């Protein structure tokens, strides 16, 4: 497998997974919670790196994802029990946890092979060099595998939980009447977002994963507010944005993650302009 193909496939898998999850975040008005999770997993990643001494292992993914869920729970407690406005709860929680993560990484800098820039915007260009072997046979890049598994997980989750996600996204009260646990669906969605964030971390970093979560889903929402077309469109925009962004970055030799986020932003602006124009004319 050529390095180019490995990078492109990793980017596409990650983008589609995030886009599908993002559709639910947009509908639930919880995109900023997704943003908070993407920052909050940092201390989890630092601790997991220190303990497992590896860049990609199952315990690391799970441990870090757990911290993401923990952050969601803190935000819930702050806003529901302690009566802090939800925006302030989010802001307080993620900045404190992110700062803790940076401090931990600095403190263990000789033991943990992570630097601050990588945390912020990842380095998808290094994906082909980080391979793993099974029984002496090279299996290809780790990130490609993990993002592929992520896509599979997200698809299974969406198909299996479609009804619960649909109901709890559009009308919480109605869902509660039908006996669908809104809280449980929230928590499961946030766990999926945490896992997606942790897996995407090395390739695109903490903040650009937010662009992958939000931008395709927001673009899709401009066209259709129905769940099924929205998910399909979001996946499509995620795919086109990551492909075009990658091609642009390869052409101009710039940050791939930055290029993808920029392309996603341009896509949104284009669709926004078209929908605005067609509405007024």
């Amino acid at each position, binding site marked *: 497998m050529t390095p180019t193909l490995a990078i492109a496939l990793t980017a596409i898998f990650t983008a589609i997974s995030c886009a599908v999850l993002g559709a639910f975040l947009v509908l639930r008005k919880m995109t900023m919670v997704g943003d908070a999770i993407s920052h909050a997993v940092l201390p989890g990643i630092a601790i997991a790196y220190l303990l497992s001494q590896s860049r990609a292992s199952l315990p690391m993914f799970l441990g870090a994802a757990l911290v993401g869920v923990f952050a969601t729970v803190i935000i819930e407690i702050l806003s529901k029990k302690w009566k802090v406005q939800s*925006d302030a709860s989010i802001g307080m929680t993620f900045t404190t946890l992110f700062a803790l993560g940076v401090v931990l990484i600095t403190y263990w800098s000789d033991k943990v092979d992570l630097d601050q820039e990588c945390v912020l915007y990842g380095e998808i260009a290094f994906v082909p060099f980080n391979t793993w072997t099974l029984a002496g046979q090279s299996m290809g890049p780790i990130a490609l595998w993990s993002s592929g598994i992520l896509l599979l997980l997200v698809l299974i989750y969406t198909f299996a939980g479609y009804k619960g996600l649909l109901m709890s996204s559009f009308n919480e009260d109605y869902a509660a009447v039908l006996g669908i646990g809104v809280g449980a669906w929230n928590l499961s969605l946030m766990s999926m977002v945490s896992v997606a964030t942790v897996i995407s971390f090395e390739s695109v970093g903490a903040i650009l994963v937010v*662009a992958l979560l939000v931008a395709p889903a927001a673009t899709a929402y401009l066209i259709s*507010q129905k769940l099924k077309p929205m998910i399909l469109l979001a996946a499509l925009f995620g795919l086109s944005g990551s492909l075009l962004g990658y091609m642009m970055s390869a052409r101009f030799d710039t940050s791939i993650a930055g290029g993808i986020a920029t392309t996603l932003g341009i896509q949104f602006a284009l669709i926004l302009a078209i929908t605005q124009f067609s509405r007024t004319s």
Partner: protein
Amino acid sequence: MFDPVFIKVLFGTLLLASSSAVVGAFSFLKGESLVGDAIAHALLPGVVLAFILGDGRHPGYFIIGALIAGLIAHYGIAFIEQRTKLKSDTAVSLVLSTFFGFGILLMSYVQRTGQGQQAGLERFLLGKAAAITMMDLYVFTGLALLLLLGVALFYKGFQLMTFNEDFAAAIGLPTGGIRFAFTVLTVLAVTVGIQTVGVVLMAALLITPSAAARSWTSSLSRMLLLAALFASAAALGGTFISAALPKMPTGPWIVLVLGFFGFSSLILAPEKGWLARRRRAASNRNKTQRENLLKLLYGAEERAGEPVAMTAGAIVDAREQHYEGLTKTLRNLKKEFLVVERPDGFALTDLGRSEGRRVVRLHRLWELYLTERLGMAADHIHPQAETMEHVITPEIEALIVKELGNPEVDPHQSPIPYEED
């Protein structure tokens, strides 16, 4: 430790933290504090473009670049919110992440072309207080003072806009203009703040001091002062810690100390803190349980026409209450000589009888008030009276008695028991 560099950094961080805290307080109260977070991230492309097009190390270019990017981001969010069906959180996170991504793209371009010292740019991601130059210090001292002056100047306008924008518009305030002024101040505060903590953690400087201050006071002016104090204390603490420990970054430590202040204020603050609220709820529950128990014993006496005692088992049956909770309540009542324990059970003392009578009286008075004055049906009033009997103060009681003309019986024809004196 007290070398000139340390003093310089300390002075810088103190100014930056307190001025951003004051500006952040308004958006905190408006429930829009994450817009500040988005503006902070969105400054990155502006700052890098200023670096590419102009002299990146000159604070003037830097500020202009930041100002333009911040305003575009702010009005971009407002445009998306108004013209599409997307909700505000999506607008904020969309602008935040795509602008930041564009900034990263530009930064990688600058790094690749090897244009100048990109180290100067990287400090905006997580801040680098130690890199503050004398020039920066002069400029940012000026900016911080400008910010405080701006807040002082627009104080009334900001206050009205924060608490009631419609009212502000109705009395003819130029809301658009005030909004613009506020956005400019926010962008300037962020521009100043990212020197120390960077774009990622900037939200903490805007939000956390206010969240901490809000749990100690309800007055706006005192809240602004407290927020500035918390921010200064955190700047002080963070700068000390990062100076004392090797290779520790200043910005994240300031944010951690701030987080500590924020969370402990939310837990510990008197009245609004979580512990105080819990204690209040527990004491209310306690009072309700005591009064219900005294009421029960009084009711038994009333039916029997003479002092009677009830066993704990009989009380549990009548109250449907946990046995443990009951024994605790009984123990407390015994300690205050409201109830005595006799061989045949628990009975009221004179003091307890008077207290039980008061609760029954309030219950019946309120039932009468609901039927007489509010015209409610007699079979709907009991639950309301169950709550109000624990709430009505002696002053209100006197007013109700007067309003109803010293009534003798309640709607169910039970006598209203006044104190026999």
